[in-house]
């Protein structure tokens, strides 16, 4: 098996994550799509670390994980506070500036 299979798998996951962000309305599911994209990028980094024989890729994936954890905390807090204020977790309902 060629190592580029891992890269193809990561691309497919990334595309599914993109489609989720574009198509779903529930803010939490959209957020999970972002997480899926970050994870697929991590798989890419780990595979390239192996191809190049350099641990720098794994370290970068580690940093992506930490930043993703911080992002999840703040993002979910925003979703919860919006839900408290508006009673909805749908991204369509946050159109106060429009109306």
């Amino acid at each position, binding site marked *: 098996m060629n190592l580029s299979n891992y890269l193809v798998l990561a691309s497919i996951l990334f595309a599914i994550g993109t489609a989720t962000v574009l198509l779903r309305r529930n803010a939490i599911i959209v957020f999970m799509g972002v997480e899926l994209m970050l994870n697929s990028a991590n798989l890419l980094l780990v595979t390239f670390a192996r191809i190049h024989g350099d641990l720098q890729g*794994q370290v970068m*994936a580690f940093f992506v994980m930490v930043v993703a954890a*911080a992002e999840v905390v703040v993002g979910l807090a925003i979703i919860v506070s919006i*839900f408290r204020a508006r009673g909805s977790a749908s991204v369509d309902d946050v159109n106060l500036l429009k109306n």
Partner: protein
Amino acid sequence: MTQLSVLLSLPASITSGGNVSSGETALFWVLAPLMVFGALGLLFARKAVHAALGIVLVMISLAFLYTAQEAPFLGVAQVVVYTGAVMMLFVFVLMLVGVDNSDSLVETLKGQRWIGAILGLGVAAALIGVIQTATFDQARGLTTPNADSNPVGVARVIFGQDIFAFEVVGVLLITAALGALVLTHRQRLVPRVGQKERADARVASGGRLAPLAAPGVYAGSNAMDTPALDPEGRPIEESVSRVLRTRGQRRSATEVEAQVGGTSAIEPAQIEPAQIEEGTQP
């Protein structure tokens, strides 16, 4: 100790440097369809909890793939950080926001579904096309950098050349924790009403201070719907639950009185064990 060393050598037995063993190939072809299936669950699941479970499947499979790709440290971190912490947080917030908060299917932007699907397929096509046309060197593998085990190698890079980035990430984590605290903080608009304030209000209003009487216990019934009797033999209406009173499901004390065998009003002194036995045996 030997078991531990066997466990630690397992990842190494799956992979050998840059070459892909048959074991890793099998692992990949088992896990890759599962991962795509879980990810599609995120895209198509009607309920948010099912989508979250699909993502958990993807993340655990990713941990397997990391371990197979000579990154056992990242594999463990993936399980701990992503499936352990991040997805737990997601499920927790789903619980707060409401599990049955499903998507609306009304399109607010016209044609958004088709455009989104085409864009998603386009991203996949572009990325896969780039990967298929690119030529990669023969994989070198991480045998040399991982000579002192993978966590040690990763730690040398993190605490060596990337130490500044590591410190910045620490600041970021603290900022994120503070941000979450500030964002979910709710300002109190009215002063807190505690036990003391409630008691003071009850005394000031001149209402009943003692607890409510329990529903009556008689020979034929000790049910919630029978009012208790006060020392003068009158039924205490408040002793029956407010819900039953509102529904009109309470029984009057006179119905019970017939069972006990009294004539007009029962006096507590009359309810003696002997009489109660009489009442139960008609």
